[in-house]
């Protein structure tokens, strides 16, 4: 009974939406309840969820997805500059343009598999990055990043006679400004939508076929499937997710920089996905959240704040704890990141989601209801 309830799409989506929309509340105790970080959680969540459609379902490890994030951002900023400050056209264009690039890059890269595929995607993304940083500066504004200017044409806005009072205009969704908490809620709405699509794909025959390709591609061919278009479709979808994330990044903060396309950015989404749990629905989101949290909160802690945090301890212990933990925060946040990567792979090979499953099993075990829990989501569906 309970199990069926949990497996129902509607229930999952309701719970998911409730959790996402109340994020400003439950992130308060960990100090993450400010708009910028919440927006980043949602946007990189979309990026990771989309990446998981490629990597989690087909097993193809792309090392160049940041290129689509960057392309989405540039497209969106250009839409703000040329068309209108409304985010709707910007995001639609971002998704379409990154989809087109994903089609081209995917078509070429998918001619190879395994590590050869990975390096091809990496090479394309690095070319995009290098060119955006230097030669393509007229389009990308190079190192500084593409920014809005007061004298931008914005033809649609000027057609409707929107007056720019002073300073730079702001991005908006039919009048609702995109910065701050409203920006978070717009991004959250997109995340819920993106998650819903991902859930549908995971639980569709299409998704099952992608999983089967990951499991045994040769067999799929002899079973009568042309695997190339399946892989390409998955590649394009995940590229469009990245474009959506990039477009949202630019909508909330209208600036697009080349470093968004660098290999480290591509690597970041890979790490988010693996850390959270490849092929699980929620895992990549968790991974994105953890990495962004470390980057933004841990890097900002310093000794005086640590002293405050551990103030409940006796003084001698506090000094020791503060001195030890000080190594891992502030400029040492990279160390925490590295250590976390290692600990998770060593102790939780399936990512954070495996930890969640283990805890769930443990609790179920206590109540004597140990069930055969498996990571694949689909089989429960097909019953």
């Amino acid at each position, binding site marked *: 009974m309970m199990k069926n309830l949990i497996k129902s799409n509607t229930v999952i989506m309701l719970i998911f939406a409730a959790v996402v929309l109340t994020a400003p509340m439950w992130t308060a105790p960990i100090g993450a309840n400010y708009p910028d970080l919440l927006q980043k959680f949602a946007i990189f969540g979309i990026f990771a969820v989309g990446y998981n459609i490629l990597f989690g379902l087909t097993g193809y490890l792309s090392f160049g997805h940041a290129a689509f994030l960057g392309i989405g951002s540039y497209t969106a900023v250009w839409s703000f500059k040329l068309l209108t400050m409304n985010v709707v056209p910007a995001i639609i264009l971002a998704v379409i343009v990154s989809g087109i690039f994903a089609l081209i890059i995917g078509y070429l890269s998918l001619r190879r598999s395994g590590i050869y595929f990975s390096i091809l995607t990496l090479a394309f993304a690095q070319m995009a990055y290098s060119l955006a940083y230097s030669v393509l500066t007229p389009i990308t504004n190079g190192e500084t990043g593409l920014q809005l200017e007061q004298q931008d044409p914005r033809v649609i806005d000027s057609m409707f006679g929107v007056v720019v009072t002073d*300073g730079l205009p702001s991005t908006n969704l039919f*009048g609702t*400004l995109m910065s701050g908490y409203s920006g978070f809620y717009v991004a959250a709405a997109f995340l819920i939508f993106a998650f819903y699509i991902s859930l549908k794909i995971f639980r569709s025959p299409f998704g099952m076929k992608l999983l089967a390709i990951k499991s045994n591609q040769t067999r799929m061919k002899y079973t009568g499937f042309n695997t190339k278009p399946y892989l390409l479709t998955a590649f394009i979808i995940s590229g469009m997710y990245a474009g959506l994330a990039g477009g949202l990044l630019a909508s909330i903060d209208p600036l697009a920089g080349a*470093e968004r396309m660098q290999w480290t950015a591509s690597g970041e989404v890979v790490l988010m996905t693996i850390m959270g749990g490849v092929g699980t629905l929620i895992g990549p989101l968790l991974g994105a959240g953890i990495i962004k949290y470390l980057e933004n909160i841990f890097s900002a802690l310093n000794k005086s704040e640590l002293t405050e945090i551990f103030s409940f301890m006796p003084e001698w212990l506090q000094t020791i704890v503060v001195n030890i933990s000080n190594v891992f925060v502030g*400029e040492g946040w990279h160390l925490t990141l590295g250590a976390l990567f290692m600990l998770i792979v060593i102790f939780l090979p399936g990512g954070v989601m495996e930890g969640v499953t283990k805890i769930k099993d443990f609790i179920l075990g206590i109540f004597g209801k140990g069930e055969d829990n498996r990571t694949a989501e689909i089989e429960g569906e097909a019953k």
Partner: protein
Amino acid sequence: MKKNENTPHLNRRGFLKVASATGVAASAPMIFMKDAYAAKDFRNDPKDSKTVTLGFNVPQSGPYADEGADELRAYKLAVKHLNGEGDGGMMKTMKPSMLKGNGILGKKVVFSTGDTQTKSDAARASAKRMIEKDGALMITGGSSSGVAIAVQGLCQEMGTIFMAGLTHSNDTTGKDRRRYGFRHFFNTEMSGAALGPVLEKEYGTDRTAYHLTADYTWGWSQEGSIKKYTEKMGWKTKAAVKTPVGAGDFSQFITPVLNSGADVLVLNHYGKDMVNSLTQAVQFGLRDKQVNGKDFQIVVPLFSRLMAQGAGENIKGILGSTNWNWALKDEGSAAFVKSFGAEYGQPPSMAAHTCYVQTLLYANACEMAGTFYPPEVIKALEGFKFDGMGNGPTEYRAEDHQCFKDVLVVRGNEKPTSQFDLLEVVQEVPRAQVEYPHDMLGGELGPYEV
């Protein structure tokens, strides 16, 4: 048209106020309230709070991490001095000064820190955190022009004052200048103007230069300025080659210099690129060469002591410009070096100096304005003339928010007397020589009220 009804003016003020003031509970529904603000209500107004928060946004990871660490040291020192702790440093030498050593406007100064990673995205995220979460009233720091411009743009949108750290590109106070952004550091135009005459004196007017330029905005800005001033005095430019940022091995760019007929190599590189290209250029024997009957010379237009450390022996005898050096003997510099040295056991870098000065200047402007309200603080800073902070009499030009002061031309020290004594000051180029019209570089400051 629905759209028009809802967006009569694209103006973010109403929203900002609400978002900044809220915790969580108030967030969602109140976003839609507009224009419900009183005249001097502004983001992160400390109101009755006993403290005021400043945001120090410095590179803590990546290639400029050491520079960032030094900036942070300077900030912490400035906070101490503002709060009346320590020996007061430049607060005693700054003229005119309204600083009393009791914080700013009687409120104790506290700070939050962030890591720019020398990436625009990360720097903006970290600045936003300090503004949105920690309630920072002013953002300062950074070690690259790309980051400075990106954060400056953000601060304009957020209505938070930005006191730039190390940023040398013309654009920061040129085409990308902002009303809320202020730069104490000098720029490539001033480097060119200062270096030009010295180069003429040292190497003559009959020279042919070869530029290697880091392929991004700062590099181009630097190349343009040096070209402008060297060509003015009769130098020819043989070639200007762009090199990829972070190339590591520059051999393929250096070898063409050997037989190009040029007798000066200008390295428009900074940081690791500079260390690598200079080290390798020296290995290729460029400094031992004779071309056109003259000794081959290398010029590095922007120097910093931290980078000089990385280049080791190779820096000896090479000319460049710098914003400030700890060996300066004026009263302000001495006071700063003394208190920095006492605190950390080493001299401050030029980035540290700029950051320290910027913090004091902001605090003083608040005192002058008698409020934290940014437009009033901005007005207090605009056109502010001061002295006693190194670099002689200085002015924050109102039209572009660029500081004008003496620029140092330095040379890598041939005989250092200590591990810190890497640069010797060749000339303190007077301010008048490096000044340029405010409209020369274009750009719009934008509005006071956002």
